[in-house]
């Protein structure tokens, strides 16, 4: 017979307003296993915890049930309480009578009845609990950063400064990300390159940081503290150790048809290229799809001109394995597809550009050397229209439902920079709302309107079309004057929505990190654990978690780094003892459990089993307790019931169901 104590929390009025806590206490006392029950205003407070500790000692309790909030909130708290009173921490069960009961019910009788049922289910379960002992696993003191944009760079530097080894894996030939492509940054208008390139150099020179550019994560196995990662170093066809970055090859290359990704395709580059002058690592890369050598077997001009003898057409992709204790995902964003919004003529007219393209057009290192020109004829524009929310806050189903957050501010920045540099250019901005929360953000926007006379028009653009003069006409509605607006203009800039990078879904799958329907990685808790993924040991940095600007990205990158450092500072981690295990006499070796295991924790061995006096060799499932996360998928897939989960055994679950159905 168990001796169970039940503790019902009021949670102030959160629970007590909809659940009659006295009635719950009276009801659970009728259970033969319950020897003590009481309620208290805040069970999680020190006074509440003391009630529990005292009751455990006084009544020699063998298990406790706390009827309170979600176990995600305070299960740990009450486990520690039990432990402090000498009870095994796995002899604690939480009945969630807040989120799953008081918050969703209005009628007190209904709420109370449900609370009693939930308490009875937890009592039925705790009666079958067994004391469990957590194990230990070693922590590998090395972190992996996936993505080498400003988020990844900042996380890497912060972790490396704390004294731990960090590897950055970046899929493009250089780190720097989107920030390196920007011209100026809001709200201070300092040059993006001037602040990001020194950080890139710092990464490259840091003794604790290794950069694997032009590389991708191929496979992730393992678990928090001990991830085993396969990294594919893609063939650059240039020996990184020999290349000096002199760029002679890039000038001599006769193939000039490569799309210059760094300039958003506004111009072309050679088949052998260095994305930009400050690239890190500053080595050339051959793009095999455009290279004449790979296409025709001839050419080889780059190799002839390379004084360092670094060109290597025979180079192959290289896959290597490394162990990590923690992984930071910093995969960033890309500009969403604006071709679905072709009423703005993006695919039809070269003078309709996205904001990132405008960023390159205004950048001193860009295709027009920083002189603002129309892409169609290279002439100076006299009138520019900005269209906000292209694909953001979309209800038509063509774009994204969310606000991309950065567009209002960068559009104000673009408008202001243009008016500053070219006072003859008229600038109009069409917007739904202008959203400028943030330090010095609203002041910045007001400066654009008041000081630089940028023409902000509330209203969305219906369509853009080419007029008879060869320019563009923008047709819109001004919602404030309630009038139709027809504007002749020279250029249209689309503030396109940002979306997570296209490879993120694949990375999330490898990490078993969850993503939302927009492919943003989900945080463990939106308020309290914003830089952690629900998968232990995986941290989130930058826009991969949600739209944010540079200051926010850098803060989040730092926060993620602190979490990583906190993890790497430990020598050992406590492992969850609630893992699956097999009953050898019942296992069929059918592989069902292995096929559903998301963590690759199950393998098979041929083992001699003694069953009813017969000794025979059988194929038996084996669970790696360190890999098992206790999700329980295997226990459901197992046809014979051989697979069971400690702390959540089939018997315990059935006891709960029985208690609820009684």
């Amino acid at each position, binding site marked *: 017979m168990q001796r169970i104590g039940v503790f019902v929390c009021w949670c102030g009025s959160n629970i007590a307003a909809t659940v009659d806590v006295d009635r719950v206490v009276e009801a659970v006392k009728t259970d033969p296993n319950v020897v003590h029950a009481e309620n208290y205003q805040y069970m999680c407070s020190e006074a509440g915890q003391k009630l529990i500790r005292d009751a455990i000692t006084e009544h020699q309790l063998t298990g406790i049930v706390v009827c309170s909030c979600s176990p995600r909130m305070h299960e740990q708290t009450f486990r520690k309480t039990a432990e402090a009173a000498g009870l095994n921490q796995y002899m604690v069960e939480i009945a969630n009578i807040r989120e799953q009961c008081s918050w969703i019910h209005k009628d007190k009788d209904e709420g109370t009845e449900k609370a009693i049922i939930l308490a009875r289910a937890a009592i039925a379960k705790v009666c079958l609990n067994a004391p469990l002992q957590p194990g230990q696993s070693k922590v590998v003191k090395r972190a992996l950063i996936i993505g080498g944009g400003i988020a990844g760079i900042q996380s890497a530097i912060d972790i490396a400064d704390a004294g731990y080894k960090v590897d950055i894996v970046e899929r493009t030939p250089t780190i720097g990300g989107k920030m390196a492509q920007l011209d100026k940054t809001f709200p201070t208008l300092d040059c993006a390159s001037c602040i990001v390139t020194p950080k890139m150099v710092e990464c490259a020179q840091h003794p604790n940081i290794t950069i694997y550019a032009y590389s991708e994560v191929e496979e992730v196995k393992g678990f928090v503290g001990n991830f085993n990662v396969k990294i594919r170093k893609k063939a650059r066809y240039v020996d990184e150790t020999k290349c000096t970055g002199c760029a002679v090859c890039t000038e001599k290359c006769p193939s000039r048809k490569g799309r210059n990704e760094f300039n958003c395709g506004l111009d072309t580059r050679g088949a052998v290229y260095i994305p930009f002058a400050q690239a890190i690592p500053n080595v050339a890369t051959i793009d095999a799809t455009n290279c004449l050598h790979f296409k025709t077997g001839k050419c080889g001009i780059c190799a002839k001109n390379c004084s360092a003898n670094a060109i290597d057409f025979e180079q192959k992709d290289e896959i290597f394995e490394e162990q990590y204790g923690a992984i930071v995902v910093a995969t960033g964003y890309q500009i969403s597809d604006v071709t679905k919004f072709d009423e703005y003529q993006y695919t039809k007219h070269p003078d309709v550009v996205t904001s990132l393209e405008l960023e390159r057009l205004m950048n001193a290192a860009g295709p027009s050397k920083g002189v603002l020109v129309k892409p169609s004829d290279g002439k100076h524009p006299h009138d520019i229209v900005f269209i906000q929310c292209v694909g953001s806050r979309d209800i038509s189903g063509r774009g994204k439902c969310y606000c991309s957050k950065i567009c209002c501010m960068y559009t104000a920045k673009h408008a202001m920079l243009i008016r500053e540099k070219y006072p003859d250019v008229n600038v109009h901005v069409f917007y739904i709302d202008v959203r400028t929360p943030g330090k010095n953000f609203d002041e910045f926007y007001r400066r654009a309107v008041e000081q630089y006379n940028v023409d902000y028009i509330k209203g969305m653009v219906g369509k853009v079309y080419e007029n008879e003069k060869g320019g563009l006409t923008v047709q819109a509605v001004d919602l404030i004057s309630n009038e139709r607006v027809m504007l002749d203009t020279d250029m249209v800039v689309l503030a396109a929505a940002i979306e997570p990078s296209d490879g993120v879904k694949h990375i999330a799958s490898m990490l*078993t990190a969850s993503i*939302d329907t927009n492919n943003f990685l989900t945080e463990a808790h939106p308020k309290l654990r914003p830089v952690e993924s629900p998968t232990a040991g995986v941290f989130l940095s930058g826009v991969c978690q949600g739209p944010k600007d540079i200051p926010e990205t850098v803060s989040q990158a730092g926060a993620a780094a602190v979490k990583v450092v906190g993890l790497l500072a430990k020598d050992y981690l406590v492992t969850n003892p609630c893992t699956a295990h097999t009953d050898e006499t*019942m296992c069929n070796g*059918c592989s069902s459990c292995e096929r559903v295991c998301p963590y690759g924790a199950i393998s098979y061995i041929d083992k001699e089993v003694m069953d009813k006096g*017969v000794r025979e060799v059988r194929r038996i499932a084996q669970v790696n307790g360190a890999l098992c996360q206790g999700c329980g998928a295997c226990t459901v897939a197992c046809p014979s*019931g*051989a697979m069971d989960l400690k702390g959540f055994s089939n018997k315990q679950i059935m006891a709960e169901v029985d208690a609820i159905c009684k």
Partner: protein
Amino acid sequence: MQEITGLMVKRAKELLEAGEVQRVIGWTTGDFCYDVTPAVFTKAEDLEEGKFVYNSFCGSNLSKYLIQTLRNDINAVNTAKAMAARKGENPDDIPGPGKTLVFLKPCDTYSFNQLLTEHRIDKSLVYVIGVACRGMADIEKIKLMGASGITKVIDAGDKLEVKTIYGDKSFDKKDVLLEKCACCKGKEHKYADEVIDPEPLPEGEGKGPMDRMAGVTMLEEMTAEERYAFWNDQLSRCIKCYACRNACPACTCMKCVFDNPRSGVDSKANVTEFEEKMYHIIRAFHVAGRCTDCGECSRVCPQGIPLHLLNRKFIKDINEFYGDYQAGEAEGQRAPLVNFDAENDVEPSIVNEKGGN
């Protein structure tokens, strides 16, 4: 049928005599000409026609018999080796179990593949001869159509000539097919080391005349109350003889939950009338996604309960939800219900999907 039986016996004898196989799993006749049962033959002389039969009553699926046969043989060898070692002899001198020859009809090969996928049999210990099948007869239908006192049944092409103590009768074979044969999936063997088929059908021909899902559709069109009444009526006849489980090639657990006192659902007197239904519901869930629709459960049910309808409902649902899937189509398939796919199974945020409410 005469011709193919002769070929099967000839081939089995050859393989036994050459030592290629150590035993043959086939069919033998019972007390009556129509109660044919599975049998294991270890000597060539036992394979005389008359003892070894292949006729229109060989509906039983032999693939499941491999599990216990192979297990017994391996255990016997291991015991012999252990004995030898104890006597100080070299255990390696004890010969291995050798191969087992099994005759499988096209539908039986699906079960065979499924058993391979689930690692229930070792392929290297089996020699599969696929045998042609043109549909098996249901003796219950023949009896219902007025034949009693049957002494002999002769296969005559599309007809069955039935000799009874009251005179001769003739039936169209298509009218007396087993349910599973009326809905035949096709005449192609999905696994075989060799096939014996003296008169092969043109490709794609030979599928059963009935729509496999017609019964399920009928059930789906009922109201919940009607459906409950239907199953209540059908399953109330269950005598819990477990024939369906014992014949089922998907029911191969080392320890079935219905035999396991720790499972909480093991065999016991029914407390309520619902418990006999519970047995069938649990069984249907256990074989869901693994059932090849071989139809053995309904064929062996002495009470004539249409158990295949439960399984087919699962098959239909799986096909509708996850795309067409035929269990046992090939070895090593990853069934939709037990397949974690890292690319597509990443948990989407429920909060986001429901608009944050």
